[in-house]
């Protein structure tokens, strides 16, 4: 297998707030291969966005990356100097955000905002950069790109604004694009178009994509592989078909069970009881144990001992005692 483009190991990003420590990201392991679309899924507050910002090294005080390594394209991102990291941002790793309309500078024409990248980073002159910008607007499906390049952000719709953001993010042909909930603020029909566009542009440029979302429907539509996060950790990683067919972790099963299926005769959607635990305490045992409907099958081990990451096949990893062969034996013995 080829070397992964991005590999995160044991990443810990903690926030040192007034009311104590919050372990927003607490031991995340993640790999992204060249050209791959990875869906990063989880509930609100599980650390998806902080993981993404950590890769960009854009975590602001009081947050700090306190442990782990982030290797990108054979370099250790965490050991780069601030100016080296600024060079990586935009040119090699780009990011787009949840609210496209407020991610654009309101007092600058959108064409200029794209052209800016070429002028600042590639040393192009204004005319050439402007021409490139119009080409990019056309490539992301903006109608009448010459006219729209002169528009200000408030003259665009949400979908158009997100297309412009995609154009800016991909302008320097980065190797990795991180999209943080790129379609959450858009309505459903536009969502599908923007997702299709994201996938198409990334495949065309050979750019890897990390798609951060809480929407499993989005993941199913776009991702090649999925990582499910819970309480600051990745609890399951699997190819997308495998995840939807045979989810291994009880949390993933819960998430999938809570999606309404159109036309299916489900009497009641399954909910996961309780809330995501606050990430400020020191946890013993599995972080999902308190909400897990299946913990009794393994016995008390879930409450006392944190499960390790267990490999279950190629590209398939689970952080759950149920996946431990010893647990299966025990279960059989109990039965």
């Amino acid at each position: 297998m080829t070397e992964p483009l991005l590999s995160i190991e044991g990443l810990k990003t903690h926030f040192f707030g007034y009311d104590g420590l919050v372990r927003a990201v607490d031991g995340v392991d993640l790999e992204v291969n060249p050209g791959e679309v990875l869906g990063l899924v989880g509930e609100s507050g599980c650390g998806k966005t902080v993981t993404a910002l950590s890769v960009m090294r854009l975590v602001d005080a009081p947050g700090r990356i306190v442990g782990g390594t982030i290797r990108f394209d054979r370099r250790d991102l965490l050991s780069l100097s601030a100016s080296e990291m600024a060079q990586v941002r935009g040119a090699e790793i780009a990011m787009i955000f949840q609210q496209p309309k407020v991610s654009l500078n309101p007092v600058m024409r959108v064409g200029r905002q794209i052209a800016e990248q070429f002028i600042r980073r590639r040393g192009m002159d204004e005319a050439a950069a402007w021409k490139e910008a119009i080409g990019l607007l056309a490539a992301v499906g903006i109608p009448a790109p010459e006219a729209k390049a002169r528009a200000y952000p408030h003259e665009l719709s949400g979908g158009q604004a997100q297309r412009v953001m995609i154009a800016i993010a991909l302008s320097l042909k980065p190797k990795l694009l991180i999209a943080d909930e790129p379609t959450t603020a858009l309505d459903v029909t536009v969502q599908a178009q923007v997702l299709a566009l994201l996938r198409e542009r990334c495949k065309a440029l050979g750019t890897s994509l990390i798609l951060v979302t809480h929407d499993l429907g989005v993941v199913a539509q776009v991702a090649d592989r999925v990582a499910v996060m819970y309480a600051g950790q990745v609890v399951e990683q699997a190819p997308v078909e495998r995840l939807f067919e045979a989810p291994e972790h009880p949390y993933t099963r819960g998430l999938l069970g809570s999606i309404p299926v159109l036309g299916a005769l489900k009497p009641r959607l399954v909910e996961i009881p309780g809330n995501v635990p606050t990430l400020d305490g020191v946890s013993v045992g599995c972080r999902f144990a308190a909400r897990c409907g299946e913990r009794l099958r393994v016995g008390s081990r879930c409450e006392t001992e944190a499960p390790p990451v267990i490999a279950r096949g190629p590209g398939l990893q689970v952080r759950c005692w149920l996946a431990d062969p010893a647990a299966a034996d025990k279960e059989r013995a109990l039965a």
Partner: protein
Amino acid sequence: MSSLALERAVEARAVIRRAGWRWTLRQLFRKRTALIGGAVVLFLIVCALWAPDFVPYDPFKVNTLNRLKPPSAAHWLGTDELGRDLLSRVLIGARFFVLVCLISVSIAASVGVFLGLIAGSGPSWLDVAVMRVIDVMLAFPYILLTLAIIAILGPSLWMAMISVGIAGIPGYARLVRGEVLAVKQEEYVEAMRALGAGPAAIMVRAILPNVASSIIIYMSFQMPLAVLAAAALSFLGLGAQPPLPEWGAMLVNARTFLRTAWWTSAAPGLAIFVSILALNLLGNALRDVLDPKSK
């Protein structure tokens, strides 16, 4: 006073953001008060530039035979204690009005904006250091502060303008710092960082243009205050010195004749009154157009 202006400037920025400058100007032209204020200010600027070409008499020419003459066909506003034509002196005096506007407001705005920017975007120790100095300046009443600065610099028209400028710095610094802190939280600044923009690029391309509109509006509120303060300093003998036809300085001389020759006080007094009124009308009209609550 200044915190109210501050609030208005912040609100106005939001409106301009939504509606654009062209809309703002069109609304302004529809207001009669804005037109009157604008016309007076325009007239003052014309006087400042070309008054020597059209004043009826030499404003410095002493004519002892014509001392303290009441308004007449020959001298529309009368003459002062040295027989100088008051109309000519008042018109020439517009020059100092415009000069005070330009010099003290640009000193206050340039230094204040710079301090606000570094306080708002620099490291926190710099923020604390700058803002505590600003707080100390704010602790003094406005006129007292200008007096203190004059006491250090020495009395003259230029020093009066500089001191009024310095006394205006804290308002701008506070406004800009607050706005920078707000703009810094905006997603487009985060997005620019994510695209690899350095702090200097973010400052020049994102923060400054987004703060500019509040600065302009705040200026329109500060200008009349600056002019009034400069005239007050001249009145106290700490600004323009006689025989300069600065309105405040003219009032001091006229005070002696208040009971016998009222027109010597009326001419510069009315000039100050009308010009400040014009600036205020303009500023208020701007606020009315831009403040959603006043509609």
